[in-house]
Protein backbone atom coordinates (compact mmCIF):
# COMPACT_ATOMS: atom_id res chain seq x y z
CA UNK A 1 0.00 0.00 0.00
CA UNK A 2 1.35 3.37 -1.02
CA UNK A 3 1.38 6.44 1.12
CA UNK A 4 1.09 9.72 -0.69
CA UNK A 5 1.22 12.97 1.17
CA UNK A 6 0.19 16.30 -0.16
CA UNK A 7 1.90 19.56 0.63
CA UNK A 8 0.57 21.98 3.18
CA UNK A 9 -1.84 19.64 4.94
CA UNK A 10 -0.86 18.34 8.36
CA UNK A 11 0.52 14.82 7.97
CA UNK A 12 -1.45 13.85 11.04
CA UNK A 13 -4.72 14.57 9.24
CA UNK A 14 -3.57 12.76 6.12
CA UNK A 15 -2.62 9.67 8.13
CA UNK A 16 -6.03 9.62 9.81
CA UNK A 17 -7.78 9.86 6.44
CA UNK A 18 -5.63 7.16 4.89
CA UNK A 19 -6.02 4.76 7.83
CA UNK A 20 -9.77 5.36 7.93
CA UNK A 21 -9.92 4.59 4.24
CA UNK A 22 -7.96 1.39 4.71
CA UNK A 23 -10.25 0.23 7.47
CA UNK A 24 -13.38 1.10 5.50
CA UNK A 25 -12.12 -0.63 2.37
CA UNK A 26 -11.18 -3.75 4.29
CA UNK A 27 -7.47 -3.41 3.63
CA UNK A 28 -7.31 -3.75 7.38
CA UNK A 29 -9.98 -6.27 8.36
CA UNK A 30 -12.24 -6.05 11.37
CA UNK A 31 -10.31 -7.27 14.41
CA UNK A 32 -6.99 -7.37 12.54
CA UNK A 33 -3.83 -6.42 14.38
CA UNK A 34 -2.20 -3.26 13.06
CA UNK A 35 1.56 -2.99 12.48
CA UNK A 36 3.52 -1.23 15.24
CA UNK A 37 3.79 2.55 15.26
CA UNK A 38 7.44 2.29 14.27
CA UNK A 39 6.71 0.01 11.32
CA UNK A 40 3.83 2.14 10.12
CA UNK A 41 5.97 5.27 10.45
CA UNK A 42 8.81 3.63 8.53
CA UNK A 43 6.42 2.43 5.84
CA UNK A 44 4.91 5.88 5.44
CA UNK A 45 8.20 7.69 5.90
CA UNK A 46 6.81 9.90 8.61
CA UNK A 47 7.76 10.94 12.09
CA UNK A 48 6.87 8.24 14.66
CA UNK A 49 5.41 10.83 17.04
CA UNK A 50 3.02 11.97 14.31
CA UNK A 51 1.99 8.38 13.55
CA UNK A 52 1.48 7.79 17.26
CA UNK A 53 -0.87 10.74 17.68
CA UNK A 54 -2.81 9.86 14.52
CA UNK A 55 -3.40 6.36 15.86
CA UNK A 56 -4.41 7.79 19.20
CA UNK A 57 -7.01 9.89 17.42
CA UNK A 58 -8.31 6.83 15.52
CA UNK A 59 -8.58 5.12 18.89
CA UNK A 60 -10.53 8.04 20.30
CA UNK A 61 -12.88 7.78 17.34
CA UNK A 62 -13.39 4.11 18.14
CA UNK A 63 -11.98 2.75 14.87
CA UNK A 64 -9.11 0.99 16.59
CA UNK A 65 -8.57 -0.23 20.10
CA UNK A 66 -5.39 -1.15 21.91
CA UNK A 67 -4.56 -3.97 24.22
CA UNK A 68 -1.92 -3.06 26.70
CA UNK A 69 0.58 -5.73 25.80
CA UNK A 70 -0.25 -6.91 22.33
CA UNK A 71 -0.73 -3.74 20.31
CA UNK A 72 -3.49 -2.08 18.34
CA UNK A 73 -6.39 -3.75 16.53
CA UNK A 74 -9.12 -2.67 14.13
CA UNK A 75 -12.46 -2.46 15.94
CA UNK A 76 -14.66 -5.55 15.91
CA UNK A 77 -17.85 -3.62 16.46
CA UNK A 78 -20.02 -3.84 13.36
CA UNK A 79 -21.93 -0.76 14.41
CA UNK A 80 -18.81 1.38 14.29
CA UNK A 81 -17.79 0.05 10.89
CA UNK A 82 -21.29 0.50 9.51
CA UNK A 83 -21.33 4.06 10.77
CA UNK A 84 -17.88 4.61 9.19
CA UNK A 85 -19.14 3.42 5.82
CA UNK A 86 -22.16 5.60 6.01
CA UNK A 87 -20.13 8.65 7.05
CA UNK A 88 -17.64 8.13 4.24
CA UNK A 89 -20.35 7.53 1.64
CA UNK A 90 -22.15 10.63 2.77
CA UNK A 91 -18.97 12.68 2.67
CA UNK A 92 -18.19 11.58 -0.89
CA UNK A 93 -21.72 12.22 -2.00
CA UNK A 94 -21.70 15.67 -0.46
CA UNK A 95 -18.55 16.52 -2.38
CA UNK A 96 -20.13 15.32 -5.59
CA UNK A 97 -23.44 17.04 -4.96
CA UNK A 98 -21.73 20.31 -4.23
CA UNK A 99 -19.90 20.22 -7.54
CA UNK A 100 -23.03 19.28 -9.46
CA UNK A 101 -25.01 22.07 -7.84
CA UNK A 102 -22.26 24.46 -8.84
CA UNK A 103 -22.84 23.61 -12.49
CA UNK A 104 -26.54 24.28 -11.98
CA UNK A 105 -28.15 20.86 -11.47
CA UNK A 106 -31.12 20.63 -9.15
CA UNK A 107 -31.72 17.89 -6.60
CA UNK A 108 -34.17 16.14 -8.86
CA UNK A 109 -31.89 16.29 -11.87
CA UNK A 110 -29.07 14.81 -9.79
CA UNK A 111 -31.23 11.96 -8.52
CA UNK A 112 -32.36 11.16 -12.05
CA UNK A 113 -28.89 11.37 -13.48
CA UNK A 114 -27.42 9.16 -10.76
CA UNK A 115 -29.86 6.39 -11.75
CA UNK A 116 -29.04 6.68 -15.45
CA UNK A 117 -25.27 6.85 -14.92
CA UNK A 118 -25.27 3.82 -12.68
CA UNK A 119 -26.86 1.85 -15.52
CA UNK A 120 -24.16 3.16 -17.91
CA UNK A 121 -21.30 2.23 -15.63
CA UNK A 122 -22.70 -1.26 -15.23
Amino acid at each position, binding site marked *: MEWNFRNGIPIYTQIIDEMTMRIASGAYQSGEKLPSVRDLAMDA*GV*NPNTMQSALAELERRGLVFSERTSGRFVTKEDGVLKQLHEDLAKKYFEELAEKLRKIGMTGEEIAGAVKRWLEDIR
Partner: protein
Amino acid sequence: MARIEINNLTKEFGTLTALDSVALELEKGQIVGLLGPNGSGKTTLIKILNGLLTPTAGNVLINGMEPGVETKRVVAYLPDRNALPDYMNTQQLIDLYQDFFTDFNRTKAEDMVLDLGIDMKQQMKRMSKGTKEKLQLCLVMAREADVYLLDEPIGGVDPATRDYILRTIISNYNEDAVVIISTHLISDIESVLDDVIFLKEGKVVLHRNAEDIREETGESVDQLFREVFRC
Protein backbone atom coordinates in the same frame (compact mmCIF):
# COMPACT_ATOMS: atom_id res chain seq x y z
CA MET B 1 16.63 18.89 31.94
CA ALA B 2 16.75 19.43 28.20
CA ARG B 3 18.91 17.05 26.19
CA ILE B 4 20.51 20.01 24.46
CA GLU B 5 20.67 23.54 25.74
CA ILE B 6 22.21 26.33 23.70
CA ASN B 7 22.69 29.59 25.54
CA ASN B 8 23.36 32.88 23.81
CA LEU B 9 25.81 31.18 21.49
CA THR B 10 27.98 33.35 19.25
CA LYS B 11 30.78 32.21 16.98
CA GLU B 12 32.97 34.56 15.03
CA PHE B 13 35.65 33.75 12.48
CA GLY B 14 37.70 36.90 12.24
CA THR B 15 35.21 39.53 11.10
CA LEU B 16 32.59 36.97 10.03
CA THR B 17 29.81 36.15 12.48
CA ALA B 18 28.79 32.53 11.81
CA LEU B 19 26.40 32.27 14.75
CA ASP B 20 24.76 35.21 16.42
CA SER B 21 23.29 34.83 19.93
CA VAL B 22 21.62 31.49 19.26
CA ALA B 23 19.43 30.18 22.07
CA LEU B 24 17.68 26.81 21.79
CA GLU B 25 16.39 24.06 24.02
CA LEU B 26 15.82 20.62 22.57
CA GLU B 27 14.01 17.92 24.52
CA LYS B 28 14.56 14.24 24.02
CA GLY B 29 12.22 12.11 21.92
CA GLN B 30 12.25 14.19 18.76
CA ILE B 31 13.71 14.53 15.32
CA VAL B 32 14.72 18.09 14.59
CA GLY B 33 15.49 19.64 11.22
CA LEU B 34 18.22 22.26 11.25
CA LEU B 35 17.42 24.08 8.04
CA GLY B 36 19.10 26.90 6.24
CA PRO B 37 20.94 27.73 3.05
CA ASN B 38 24.67 27.15 2.72
CA GLY B 39 26.66 29.37 5.02
CA SER B 40 23.80 29.98 7.44
CA GLY B 41 25.69 28.42 10.37
CA LYS B 42 24.29 24.86 10.44
CA THR B 43 27.65 23.13 10.32
CA THR B 44 29.19 25.61 12.76
CA LEU B 45 26.46 24.88 15.31
CA ILE B 46 26.87 21.12 14.93
CA LYS B 47 30.64 21.39 15.25
CA ILE B 48 30.32 23.38 18.46
CA LEU B 49 27.98 20.72 19.87
CA ASN B 50 30.72 18.18 19.09
CA GLY B 51 33.46 20.27 20.70
CA LEU B 52 35.24 20.73 17.36
CA LEU B 53 34.88 24.49 17.56
CA THR B 54 35.18 26.71 20.61
CA PRO B 55 32.39 29.29 21.07
CA THR B 56 33.29 32.97 20.97
CA ALA B 57 30.54 33.66 23.53
CA GLY B 58 27.81 31.67 25.25
CA ASN B 59 27.81 27.91 25.68
CA VAL B 60 26.16 24.63 24.77
CA LEU B 61 25.14 21.89 27.17
CA ILE B 62 24.38 18.26 26.38
CA ASN B 63 22.74 16.44 29.30
CA GLY B 64 23.77 19.52 31.27
CA MET B 65 27.46 19.23 30.40
CA GLU B 66 29.70 21.22 28.11
CA PRO B 67 31.21 19.21 25.25
CA GLY B 68 33.90 16.88 26.57
CA VAL B 69 34.69 13.22 27.09
CA GLU B 70 31.37 12.63 28.88
CA THR B 71 29.23 14.13 26.14
CA LYS B 72 31.26 12.44 23.38
CA ARG B 73 30.25 9.09 24.85
CA VAL B 74 26.59 9.81 24.12
CA VAL B 75 26.77 11.85 20.92
CA ALA B 76 26.81 10.15 17.52
CA TYR B 77 28.13 12.49 14.83
CA LEU B 78 27.96 12.25 11.06
CA PRO B 79 30.34 14.90 9.73
CA ASP B 80 29.92 16.68 6.40
CA ARG B 81 33.08 15.00 5.04
CA ASN B 82 34.84 11.67 5.17
CA ALA B 83 36.73 11.59 8.45
CA LEU B 84 37.59 7.92 8.70
CA PRO B 85 41.05 6.56 7.93
CA ASP B 86 40.74 5.63 4.26
CA TYR B 87 43.22 2.75 4.34
CA MET B 88 40.85 0.73 6.54
CA ASN B 89 38.14 -1.58 5.19
CA THR B 90 34.52 -1.88 6.32
CA GLN B 91 35.27 -4.71 8.74
CA GLN B 92 38.13 -2.79 10.39
CA LEU B 93 36.03 0.34 10.68
CA ILE B 94 33.31 -1.64 12.45
CA ASP B 95 35.99 -2.96 14.84
CA LEU B 96 37.18 0.59 15.36
CA TYR B 97 33.71 1.82 16.30
CA GLN B 98 33.21 -1.14 18.59
CA ASP B 99 36.49 -0.42 20.35
CA PHE B 100 35.67 3.17 21.15
CA PHE B 101 31.89 3.38 21.57
CA THR B 102 30.22 1.22 24.20
CA ASP B 103 26.79 2.04 22.73
CA PHE B 104 27.77 0.61 19.33
CA ASN B 105 25.55 -2.22 18.14
CA ARG B 106 27.69 -4.37 15.89
CA THR B 107 24.86 -6.56 14.58
CA LYS B 108 22.89 -3.51 13.59
CA ALA B 109 25.87 -2.07 11.71
CA GLU B 110 26.51 -5.34 9.89
CA ASP B 111 22.84 -5.64 8.92
CA MET B 112 22.82 -2.13 7.52
CA VAL B 113 26.06 -2.67 5.62
CA LEU B 114 24.54 -5.81 4.14
CA ASP B 115 21.27 -4.05 3.24
CA LEU B 116 23.15 -1.33 1.40
CA GLY B 117 25.37 -3.81 -0.42
CA ILE B 118 28.65 -2.50 0.99
CA ASP B 119 31.59 -4.89 0.71
CA MET B 120 33.00 -5.88 4.12
CA LYS B 121 36.51 -6.27 2.73
CA GLN B 122 36.67 -3.18 0.57
CA GLN B 123 39.05 -0.42 1.57
CA MET B 124 37.46 2.94 2.14
CA LYS B 125 39.71 4.63 -0.41
CA ARG B 126 38.44 2.29 -3.12
CA MET B 127 34.80 3.15 -2.43
CA SER B 128 32.77 5.69 -4.38
CA LYS B 129 31.87 8.90 -2.61
CA GLY B 130 28.28 7.72 -2.17
CA THR B 131 29.34 4.40 -0.66
CA LYS B 132 31.65 6.17 1.79
CA GLU B 133 28.76 8.35 2.90
CA LYS B 134 26.51 5.32 3.34
CA LEU B 135 29.13 3.45 5.36
CA GLN B 136 29.71 6.41 7.65
CA LEU B 137 25.97 6.69 8.19
CA CYS B 138 25.70 2.97 9.04
CA LEU B 139 28.42 3.31 11.65
CA VAL B 140 26.83 6.38 13.21
CA MET B 141 23.26 5.08 13.20
CA ALA B 142 24.32 1.71 14.64
CA ARG B 143 25.12 3.50 17.88
CA GLU B 144 22.44 3.71 20.54
CA ALA B 145 23.20 7.28 21.43
CA ASP B 146 21.36 10.05 23.29
CA VAL B 147 22.07 12.60 20.60
CA TYR B 148 22.53 12.13 16.86
CA LEU B 149 24.04 15.03 14.97
CA LEU B 150 23.72 14.37 11.25
CA ASP B 151 25.30 17.01 9.03
CA GLU B 152 23.79 16.77 5.52
CA PRO B 153 23.11 13.01 5.68
CA ILE B 154 21.24 12.91 2.37
CA GLY B 155 23.37 15.33 0.41
CA GLY B 156 25.01 13.11 -2.15
CA VAL B 157 22.97 9.90 -2.29
CA ASP B 158 20.47 8.47 -4.77
CA PRO B 159 16.70 8.48 -4.01
CA ALA B 160 16.59 4.79 -3.03
CA THR B 161 19.39 5.25 -0.53
CA ARG B 162 17.81 8.44 0.71
CA ASP B 163 14.62 6.50 1.51
CA TYR B 164 16.67 3.84 3.25
CA ILE B 165 18.44 6.48 5.31
CA LEU B 166 15.19 8.13 6.33
CA ARG B 167 13.70 4.77 7.29
CA THR B 168 16.86 4.04 9.28
CA ILE B 169 16.48 7.31 11.13
CA ILE B 170 12.82 6.55 11.86
CA SER B 171 13.50 3.00 12.98
CA ASN B 172 16.32 4.18 15.18
CA TYR B 173 14.14 6.77 16.81
CA ASN B 174 13.68 6.31 20.52
CA GLU B 175 12.08 8.34 23.24
CA ASP B 176 15.39 9.06 24.93
CA ALA B 177 17.24 10.39 21.93
CA VAL B 178 17.19 13.61 20.01
CA VAL B 179 18.13 13.50 16.34
CA ILE B 180 19.29 16.67 14.63
CA ILE B 181 19.42 16.62 10.85
CA SER B 182 20.97 19.55 9.05
CA THR B 183 20.07 19.99 5.41
CA HIS B 184 18.93 22.35 2.73
CA LEU B 185 16.98 19.58 0.95
CA ILE B 186 13.80 20.07 2.93
CA SER B 187 11.09 18.46 0.86
CA ASP B 188 12.94 15.14 1.10
CA ILE B 189 12.88 14.99 4.87
CA GLU B 190 10.13 17.21 6.14
CA SER B 191 7.66 14.39 6.80
CA VAL B 192 10.15 12.88 9.26
CA LEU B 193 10.60 15.98 11.39
CA ASP B 194 8.98 16.95 14.68
CA ASP B 195 10.45 20.42 14.96
CA VAL B 196 12.15 22.62 12.45
CA ILE B 197 14.71 25.32 13.08
CA PHE B 198 15.41 27.90 10.38
CA LEU B 199 18.87 29.41 10.53
CA LYS B 200 19.49 32.58 8.58
CA GLU B 201 22.86 34.31 8.64
CA GLY B 202 23.69 32.77 11.99
CA LYS B 203 20.38 33.62 13.65
CA VAL B 204 17.45 31.40 14.54
CA VAL B 205 14.53 32.93 12.65
CA LEU B 206 12.04 30.16 13.41
CA HIS B 207 11.73 27.19 15.75
CA ARG B 208 8.39 25.43 15.47
CA ASN B 209 6.60 22.15 15.19
CA ALA B 210 6.39 21.06 11.54
CA GLU B 211 2.75 19.98 11.83
CA ASP B 212 1.80 23.33 13.35
CA ILE B 213 3.41 25.08 10.41
CA ARG B 214 1.41 23.00 7.92
CA GLU B 215 -1.79 23.49 9.88
CA GLU B 216 -1.52 27.21 10.36
CA THR B 217 0.00 28.31 7.08
CA GLY B 218 -1.49 25.66 4.81
CA GLU B 219 1.98 25.36 3.35
CA SER B 220 4.64 22.70 3.51
CA VAL B 221 7.79 23.45 5.48
CA ASP B 222 9.58 23.52 2.14
CA GLN B 223 7.24 26.22 0.81
CA LEU B 224 7.61 28.29 3.95
CA PHE B 225 11.38 27.89 3.75
CA ARG B 226 11.40 29.22 0.20
CA GLU B 227 9.45 32.26 1.31
CA VAL B 228 11.62 33.01 4.29
CA PHE B 229 14.83 32.63 2.31
CA ARG B 230 13.68 34.17 -0.95
CA CYS B 231 16.57 35.97 -2.59
